[in-house]
């Protein structure tokens, strides 16, 4: 019991320290960087939940962008209601965000229940179609959601107590960072408890976990809805940051970007989610800057504009994945172990989480037993 409390206290202190450091950082950075930081924090909320779901729970979801959309649209609608009734208090924002979280959790529960029996690519397929289908709801219920147009989000202005010249972007960064820290704290605690252990047990060997008495389906659904809740918060923060919502901002590409962030950062690791979110915001920016500064003739420039950064971004993804399969965090772990002089004989691959398969039966490993036939992919 005391050990449990120590973990909580440790996490709380970590959160407070990180919070203070980030608070100071927002003053050092200029408004544009603050906005980028805020965007990364919003991504982090969703990516953190997703990395826990994928890395520790073994369930792959390609539809978390849609869950962010649910959170975002809820925030938009609730905030606009506040606006229509002229309620301008600062407390409207946490209230709408909470509503967004609840809505996303509900959606996540529905999907999680439908997906409880699915594994691997079948779960991926279902979530992929969810990612594509959910934005279509905005066109079907045109009156409320206004289809492709989207909605603008009514927001209270920056609190007067902060001063007249306080940049909006810094305030937005504070909101987003607060949300992200909350999510990190919650997930860190969850991961250390019995629930985290159950998830990992299921991921590693579902049948054994079931035999050991773990309620597999229930744990999986709960894992899904936890990740949905964090995605809803991330989406809600997106709505606050962009002051608008529209289906074009929550396409399949967003879900795939979240996946990118998770895997590049290192699946299963919360710190990895941080790396992934930062890279998501910065990599594309750097690719743009790199190509923007090249000396090009006007004709060539039109051809290359937009396309060259795209290609560079893709190339970076491939290179990172080939060079560091454990993601950035995996790389850092390896570096950490090497620094500490603990060089293991084999490669530094931990038991990596995979798409629903028991890791002992990694496909095509040369000296493993022949993988069990299709029948065991339940």
């Amino acid at each position, binding site marked *: 019991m005391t050990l449990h409390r120590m973990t909580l206290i*440790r996490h709380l202190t*970590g959160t407070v320290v*990180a919070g203070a*450091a*980030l608070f100071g*950082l927002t003053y*050092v*950075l*200029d*408004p*544009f*960087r603050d*906005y*980028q*930081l805020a*965007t990364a924090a919003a991504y982090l909320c969703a990516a953190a939940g997703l990395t826990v779901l994928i890395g520790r729970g073994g369930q792959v979801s390609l539809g978390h962008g849609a869950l962010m959309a649910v959170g975002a649209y809820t925030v938009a609608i609730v905030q606009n209601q506040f606006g229509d009734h002229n309620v301008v208090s600062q407390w409207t924002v946490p209230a709408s965000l909470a509503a967004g979280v609840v809505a996303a959790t509900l959606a996540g529960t529905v999907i999680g229940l439908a997906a409880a029996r699915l594994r691997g690519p079948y779960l991926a397929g279902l979530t992929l179609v969810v990612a594509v289908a959910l934005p279509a709801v905005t*066109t079907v219920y*045109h009156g409320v959601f206004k*289809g*492709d*147009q*989207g909605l*603008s989000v009514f927001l209270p202005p920056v609190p007067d107590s902060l001063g007249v010249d306080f940049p*909006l*972007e810094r305030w937005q960064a504070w909101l987003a960072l607060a949300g992200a820290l909350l999510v990190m704290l919650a997930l860190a605690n969850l991961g250390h408890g019995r629930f985290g252990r159950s998830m990992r047990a299921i991921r590693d060997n579902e049948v054994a976990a079931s035999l050991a008495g773990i309620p597999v389906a229930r744990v999986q659904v709960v894992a899904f809805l936890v990740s949905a809740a964090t995605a809803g918060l991330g989406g809600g923060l*997106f709505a606050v*940051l*962009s*002051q*608008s919502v*529209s289906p*074009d*901002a929550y*396409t399949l*590409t*967003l879900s795939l970007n979240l996946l990118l962030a998770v895997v590049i950062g290192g699946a299963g690791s919360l*710190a990895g989610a*941080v*790396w992934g979110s*930062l890279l998501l915001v*910065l990599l594309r*920016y750097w690719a743009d800057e790199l190509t923007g500064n090249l000396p090009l003739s*006007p*004709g060539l420039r*039109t051809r290359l*504009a*937009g*396309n060259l*950064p*795209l290609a560079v971004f893709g190339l970076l993804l491939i290179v990172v994945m080939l060079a560091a399969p454990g993601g950035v*965090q995996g790389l*850092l*772990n390896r570096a*950490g172990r090497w620094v*500490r002089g603990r060089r293991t004989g084999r490669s530094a691959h931990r038991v990596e989480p995979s798409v629903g398969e028991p890791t002992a039966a990694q496909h095509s490993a040369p000296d493993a037993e022949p993988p069990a036939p299709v029948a065991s992919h339940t």
Partner: protein
Amino acid sequence: MHISVRRAVAAATMVILVAAAGACSSKSGSGTSSAPVPGVTDTEVVVGTHTPLTGPAAAGYSKISAATKAYFDYVNANGGVNGRKITYKIMDDGYNPATTQQVVRQLVLQDKVFAILNGLGTPTHTGVLDFLNTNKVPDLFVASGSLSWNQPQKYPYTFGYNPDYTIEGKILATYLKANFAGAKVCTFGQNDDFGDDGLKGVQAVLGSGGVTHSEKYDVTNTNVAPAIGALKAAGCQVTVSFSVPGFTALAIGTGAQIGFRTQWVVSNVGADYATLAGLLKAAAGPLLEGVISDAYLPSVDDSSNGWISLFQRLNTQYNGNAPWDGNVLYGFSVGYLFVEALRAAGKNLTRQGIVQAVEKNGFTGPGLFGLRFSKSDHSGYGGLQMGKVQSGKAVLFGPVYTTDDGTGAVTESNTTPAAPPANGIPA
């Protein structure tokens, strides 16, 4: 405990990285401008835009900004405006509103542009209206016909350019009422404001019962056969299409394939003949013959028009001789208007100054009917002329019609558009 050590190291690394990025950027962000007005020095004015250069929406639209830039290159080669050269920063947003947010903030907060010019797209630009107006950045000549840009009370810094879709609907419907009385009129529209406002305009003139059947299409679903089939089943004799060029071609092509005979009437947004012909290839000639449309700029095929010959010449010299079509004409027209506005704002260039200059209006340009800018109207073009495809060329005919967004009647105007200045630069 080493897990925490690793975490702390990771966290510290992250903070250092971000701070380093921040420090780098803060220095580079200030640029050469130390003047009080962002984006303006004695020798340069920097403006930016967001537009889709990649992704499905890039087709056609990516040519617009290149043409505007070409016009600015021409003006710069002739001394610029009030001694200042124009630098045009074109940012790709891939038609994704989330990217537009990032890109516009980068332009305003980091690149410190003087104004945003010709931001493209209704969903993409709607998201940045609040940001731009809160930061008092002139948001000039938005490339879309949505009514959202015409809200001078709420968004005083935002100005539209394209004629509103409602106006277009009303004018097209008026023409149909006069020339196709008694025919079954149907609409085929994009599933957003473009299609909705267009339909509203048509219904405002023909009455809600005047439209026999209405179909919608989604830009994400290229299979329009079910919708066209439904129009055929309804027996539509005239079909008004509020569609982008790609879907206009699809609709007309699919109609031909299933034997759907109708008089196509296409919005100016989707009627550029060169683009449609390029998409329909061999079938273009017979399929597009007789298609009716409307325009607020002269026909690209009308080489007797001074503006067309001027812009075609500049296109060859400064735009790498890009294929000449409606998008290129549009880009040059926007560039011309912006230079007019810059000139009117005077040597002492401020953001407020250019907003006032635009509201004062008095602009000439290639438009068939004048721009409607004033203190109370930020909409843009309000007049359209009917056009028809004859022997592979888009020919404009009849008077220029004008109306308002509301219940006002459609009236004819007979003002003759001004000719371009001799050197193609506003005096």
